[in-house]
């Protein structure tokens, strides 16, 4: 169904293509006549996006070209108005960050990639594994399904605290109690730089698997069982059936959940912020949490945070564009 308001008489949905060529003013008017209500319907969203996203975005980009900090941003305290004194510094911020002079960018970037890749990898493989198991006929299937989804129902900040308690050092941390009973030494889960990373990945994997599992289970159920029957008739082994029937059948769902999962994980804030604590060193910070730390801790470095924000956004845009292109190309060659 499209904008063809004249009804079925003029050829239905694709009437735009069949129109005779006319002059520009007429076309503009016609376009307005046909589309004004569509535009009216999207207008509120466009306005909201413009004011709440567009303006802050532009201002964020602008700030990334300045040396704004908490000290020079300009404020009103009671009666006194302190004017803003920050100034335009061109691409200095970007140069500092990207040339490695600021020193924190490349280690953070590398860890962010590792964090995103490992989390999405585990989310997807564990989720797919469980989905395949749950897609079989068996007893208690719905019980398993409901219980396995539970972590999704826990808000991320609650999960972060629950895990932090289990990671605790001293007598109260469950993991170290268990390690002690097994005769192994205690591990400084939340203090040691390497263990911090292992801990946050564990929490995030626990939290993210149910979504993947449910999404992929939905995808599995939409694959026609006739395909499996046909493959079996042709003598395909279980692995071949998985490889050539299941995986291609899951492609539309997989591509969406991997795209979403990557973006979500890349920007994941509460886990690292709450599990390790706001005063964690720079080691465990991914780009998103590091930018936040710049913006709101110590002397607030607004320009630095904005610079990181712009860099993160550009990276995600490049990723999404390539990802879409790749999918389209695959689609075309099929």
């Amino acid at each position, binding site marked *: 169904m499209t904008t063809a308001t004249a009804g079925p008489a003029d050829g239905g949905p694709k009437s735009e293509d069949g129109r005779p060529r006319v002059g520009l003013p007429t076309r503009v008017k016609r376009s307005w006549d046909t589309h004004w209500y569509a535009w009216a319907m999207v207008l509120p969203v466009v306005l909201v*996006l413009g004011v709440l996203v567009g303006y802050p975005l532009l201002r964020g980009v602008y700030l990334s070209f300045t040396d704004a900090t908490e000290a020079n941003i300009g404020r009103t305290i009671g009666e006194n108005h302190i004017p803003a004194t920050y100034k335009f510094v061109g691409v200095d911020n970007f140069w500092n960050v990207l040339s490695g002079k600021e020193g924190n960018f490349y280690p953070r970037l590398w860890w962010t990639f590792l964090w995103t890749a490992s989390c999405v990898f585990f989310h997807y493989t564990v989720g797919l594994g469980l989905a395949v198991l749950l897609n079989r006929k068996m007893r208690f299937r719905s019980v398993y399904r409901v219980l396995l989804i539970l972590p999704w129902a826990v808000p991320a900040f609650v999960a972060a605290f629950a895990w932090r308690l289990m990671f605790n050092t001293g007598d109260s941390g469950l993991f170290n109690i268990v390690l002690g009973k097994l005769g192994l030494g205690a591990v400084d889960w939340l203090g040691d730089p390497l263990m911090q990373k292992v801990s946050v990945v564990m929490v995030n994997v626990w939290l993210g698997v149910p979504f993947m599992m449910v999404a992929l289970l939905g995808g599995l159920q939409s694959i026609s069982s006739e395909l499996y029957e046909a493959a079996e008739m042709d003598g395909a082994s279980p692995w071949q059936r998985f490889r050539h029937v299941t995986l291609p059948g899951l492609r539309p769902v997989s591509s969406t959940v991997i795209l979403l999962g990557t973006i979500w994980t890349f920007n994941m804030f509460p886990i690292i912020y709450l599990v390790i604590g706001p005063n964690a060193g720079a080691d465990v910070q991914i780009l998103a949490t590091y930018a936040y730390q710049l913006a709101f801790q110590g002397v607030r470095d607004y320009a630095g945070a904005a610079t990181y924000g712009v860099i993160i956004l550009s990276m995600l845009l490049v990723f999404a564009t390539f990802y879409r292109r790749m999918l389209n190309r695959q689609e075309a060659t099929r």
Partner: protein
Amino acid sequence: MAADTTVPATAVQHSAAGQRRAVRVRRRGERGPGASAGLHLTLLAATVIALFPIVWMAFIALKPGNGWQDPLDLSGGLGLSNFDHVLTDTEFPTWFGNSVLIAGGTTVIGVLISAGAGYAISRLRFPGNRALMWTFLITQMFPGAVLIVAMYNILSTLKLIDTYGGLILAYCSSAVPFCAWMMKGYFDTIPGEIDEAGRIDGLTPFGTFWRLMMPLARPGLAVTAFYSFLTAWGEVAFASQFMQSESKYTLAVGLQSFVAEHRADWGFLMAASVLITVPAGFVFFFAQKHLVSGLTSGGTKG
């Protein structure tokens, strides 16, 4: 695996193939006892991992006083004193109310504004259609970092820091595009013939949307609303900076104050966590099936 629908010819062929391997013929989709045990063991292990942190949370919440400091020592008994303390002596009920108010406000605004746009993008082909869809997708990629600084400065200029309205506005920046994306996905699943029928019966495009589509889209609206509620409910970064006085905290901010630097009341914190998780968990059960389909359908057809 539809074992019952196997036609006889297949069964014969299949069993012929199967007899070479096993004496007793298994039907399609049937497992041996070993495979069954393996399947159940794997799923049981996964279930234990999935449930354990939640069970542990509830267990610690039930241990009174400083019971959390030595969790395996059960001499203190179990009781509800942590819950009692959290509900009566802390600001927890206020924070709960704040969270409901802010998440609810965000949801109502998000859904109301975006439903029309979702419909227009799903059904009407107009210049700007694809660009908008693309914008919705990109907005969801925005790292908090790029918006939060500018938003903080703007809101403090407008004196909206530490107000409900300020945080709701900040949340709408992600809720509105998200809701529009979800609603578009839902409208895509409603057959276009229904619109056509409405048009033929003389409804305007607005009438079709309001009188035909909105009632039909109620499940989609509910799912969208629920999802944007959950997102706002669990948000940490904006709330931690924008809400500064204790009476304005949302739950995500308030809980952090239970484990501040010189104080760690894990028993209270876990009791509060249980109180947050239980209602969310109940609603979640009923909604979860629809949540995923809504989210992924917007993507696959975008």
